[in-house]
């Protein structure tokens, strides 16, 4: 078997894949237009291929991918639900996709209205008072959130130094806190999988700017004492930040604002079904309580009578975190989703996401350890510890073997507090038949671990390539193709 060629390896000098116009303006010598020294010396070594070759190359590459459109994607914490095709059609309307961000306000009223209405819906869903639609992803939302918290304290002449983060938190939480100049203090979880209240008490003081909580947390468990946690955090004047990556478990049932959170981000590319695009783009809306509103990034969409405009004049704002107004095309998709589901539909989303997760949890529990085996929310964390101890097969091996069964693997080795973690999130859009097929596969793999562990250790066997050498990739970085001499 030979390597799948790179597009560069298909290149033939002089071949073209485009149909651009000829200049229709007077052909003045280039040197009259730009100084010679500014001109490029040697052309970039881009591939020279025909349009057909490009179509074939990327069509074939697409066949070497795994997507929701092809199969089950129980990737915990990522909420890989169905991305409705209707949203693609809506997002591609020329009135949206061909709109320049610097078109005068009075000529983009449709776009601004959409943003404003989306903001209204999200505020109600979050139980918050104001939103910023700008962040490009969840982590970007975290950045905005902590910047807002920081500005809030600054406005009160306070300089708080630290942010508390549970040991189960996603890596973006501590990373964000560091980017905003905060010291990160890790708070352990208790045996039930809740945040350890005693430990929290220890670390909470007037130097604490915020607690970054994920709820349901990354174990898929609802923080049972969220109200008391909020009380204590507020008691020292600190802010409650919600990492809303797991919002899918609570829409319409409980609102972060009502749980005592002051600021949160949501991942529209999770809860609100915008496609993840193989890594992005996303959209990470930030919602805040009234006392934090003055600090949101500029611009903010405001409505006056029946006109909409972008408000830049916000003296206390943290400023800008990106150019323009946000990942607009994704916001269009998310809004289409909200309008299609409505209040009842969204509540049903949470109910079924939770129903499906618990069904899987209960069916898998006999075969895989489930460290915190209680009613979970939209996901749960199993463990390959049993198989590792018993058969010398790791969670990574089990994940790779699942690929042979035609499923994507769950999230593995996260959260860090569960050894050999297997984090499973089925979402509400999968059918019982699919869930059962997944269970059968997991059971079969458990059997293989006992009867033929080597087969699992060397998996995957049916994929376009076999197990890849990640160590070599890191030891000898090869990050780009290089043209031959």
């Amino acid at each position, binding site marked *: 078997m030979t390597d*799948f060629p790179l597009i560069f390896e298909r290149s033939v000098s002089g071949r073209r894949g485009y149909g651009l116009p000829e200049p229709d303006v007077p052909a003045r010598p280039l040197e009259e237009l730009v100084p010679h020294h500014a001109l490029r010396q040697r052309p970039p070594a881009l591939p020279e291929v025909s349009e057909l070759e490009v179509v074939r190359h990327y069509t074939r590459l697409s066949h070497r*991918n795994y997507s929701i459109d*092809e199969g089950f994607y129980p990737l915990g914490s990522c909420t890989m639900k169905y991305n409705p095709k209707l949203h693609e059609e809506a997002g591609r309307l020329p009135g949206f996709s061909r709109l320049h961000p610097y078109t005068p306000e009075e000529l983009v009223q449709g776009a601004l209205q959409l943003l404003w209405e989306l903001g209204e819906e999200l505020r109600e869903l979050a139980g918050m008072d104001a939103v910023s639609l700008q962040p490009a992803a969840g982590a970007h939302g975290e950045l905005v959130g902590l910047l807002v918290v920081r500005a809030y304290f600054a406005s009160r002449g306070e300089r708080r130094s630290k942010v508390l983060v549970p040991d189960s938190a996603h890596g973006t939480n501590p990373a964000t806190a560091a*980017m905003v*100049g905060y010291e990160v203090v890790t708070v352990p979880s208790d045996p039930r999988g809740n945040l350890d209240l005693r430990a929290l008490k220890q670390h909470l003081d007037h130097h604490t700017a915020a607690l970054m909580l994920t709820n349901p947390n990354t174990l898929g468990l609802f923080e049972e004492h969220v109200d008391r946690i909020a009380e204590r955090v507020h008691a020292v004047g600190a802010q409650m930040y919600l990492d809303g990556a797991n919002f899918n478990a609570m829409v319409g049932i409980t609102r972060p604002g009502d749980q005592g959170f002051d600021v949160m981000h949501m991942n529209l590319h999770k809860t609100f079904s915008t496609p*993840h695009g*193989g890594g992005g783009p996303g959209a990470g809306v930030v919602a805040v309580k009234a006392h934090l509103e003055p600090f949101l990034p500029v611009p903010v969409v405001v409505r006056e009578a029946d006109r909409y405009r972008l408000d830049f004049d916000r003296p206390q704002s943290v400023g800008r975190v990106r150019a323009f107004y946000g990942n607009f095309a994704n916001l269009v998709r998310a809004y289409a989703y909200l309008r*299609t589901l409505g209040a009842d*539909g969204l509540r049903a989303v949470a109910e079924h996401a939770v129903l499906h997760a618990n069904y899987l949890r209960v069916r898998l529990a006999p075969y895989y350890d489930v460290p915190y085996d209680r009613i979970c929310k939209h996901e749960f964390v199993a463990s390959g510890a049993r198989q590792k101890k018993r058969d010398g097969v790791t969670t990574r091996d089990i994940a790779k073997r699942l690929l042979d069964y035609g499923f994507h693997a769950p999230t593995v080795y996260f959260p860090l507090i569960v050894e050999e973690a297997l984090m499973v999130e089925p979402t509400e859009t999968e059918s019982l038949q699919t869930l059962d097929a997944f269970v059968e596969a997991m059971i079969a793999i458990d059997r293989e671990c006992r009867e033929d562990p080597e087969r699992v250790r060397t998996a995957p066997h049916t994929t376009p390539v076999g197990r890849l050498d990640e160590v070599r990739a890191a030891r000898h970085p090869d990050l780009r193709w290089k043209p031959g001499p």
Partner: protein
Amino acid sequence: MRYIPTTPEERRRMLEVIGVRSVEDLFADVPQSVRLGRPLRLRPVLSDPEVLRYLGGLAERNAHADRLACFVGAGAYDHFVPPAVWQLAGRGEFLTAYTPYQAEVMQGELQATYEYQTMVCELLGMEVANASMYDGASALGEAAVMARDLTGRDRVVVSQAVHPEYRQVLRTYTEPLGIQVVERRHEGGITPADPRAVDTRTAAVVVQHPNFFGCLEDVRGWAEVAHRVGALLVVACSDPLAFGLLEPPGALGADIVAAEGQPLGNPLNFGGPYLGIIATRNKFVRRMPGRLVGATVDRYGRRGFVLTLQTREQHIRREKATSNICTNEALNALAAAVYLSLLGPQGVRQVAELCLRKAHYLKAQVAQLEGVGVLFAAPTFHEFVVRTPRPAAALVRAVAREGFLAGLPLGRFYRGMQNALLVCVTETRTRDEIDRFVEALARASRRGRAAVGGRR
């Protein structure tokens, strides 16, 4: 329920297996005190045709680039996007995949990203590029922090001819870390290289090329100035297609390039999603933010691709990571790879040349218009600043009525520049459109001057 396949009968069976009586029981752990005791107050639900109709109505109320001939750029460019780009990038296998954590089933995404990283390096003349950042502005913010980490210095000198929104983002990213940002005024639309601008506390000098006004900066000069004091040169760029024709930043001494990749096959999208590009030297790669795809081999020795050097990233390094970025703009990077594959070296050169020639065709005519003129004498690429006889904002409104999106009034970003308009001409503008645009400008300016005269 829309998009939920579970039937009531199946729900019953699942509850039975779980061993609870109702779905309600699955939420027993949610304290009553924090429950939402009422239905959500949302807009009424719509059926599929109704949603499309409603959004179609909103879309219709925007003056998009098929309606108004677009002469504005300023960080978002109306280049021609070959239909093949999104018919490929939009395929479900790419569109609905997550980040390629399971490399063996994600070779499509991974190889395409590796190809993208290579193409970006080639276009910018750099050694290594990452898998994407959010956009050009945030990439610049991260570049400044990266420079701080690399030099251990906390001062960044930035030209005022860098996109004003990029500069705002730069401040937002650097301020909490105590990095001091010093702005350099432009002179006649460019930022002359000046050793006095830097000292041994300088982490980086940041210039945009071509700059926000469309003018070509003395990048080589700034590279010398920066390097002489051990600082890094960070080059920002809002349209990398310029380097189809212009010497790329890598060849001019840039240490880090932060660019906007929207012009590479991505739609205008009212400002996003766009494509953040960051590229640097090999020796700086371990300080680079964001994901990197690398080539390796599988257990049979076949070439394959994986996410690599992840010890830089948040999910491993947490608070010590080079950045907090996780989700990026992978799909836009894929589109850029398809776009650059279609164009190839001749294609990018032809686009760049068309932009340059058409922009200068307009520039020459604007220079002739009485009362109107070209503000800066410095050489430009496909954008330049027009001096207007009346506030540019009013002019823009006037010519919009005649079917043109005239440009960006600079008063909003630069004090005292109320009568300056930043215009752009890409390959999608025809000579005929340019000629009619000039007439519209002329008419609007005359009216303008009359008005002003009237007021006196």
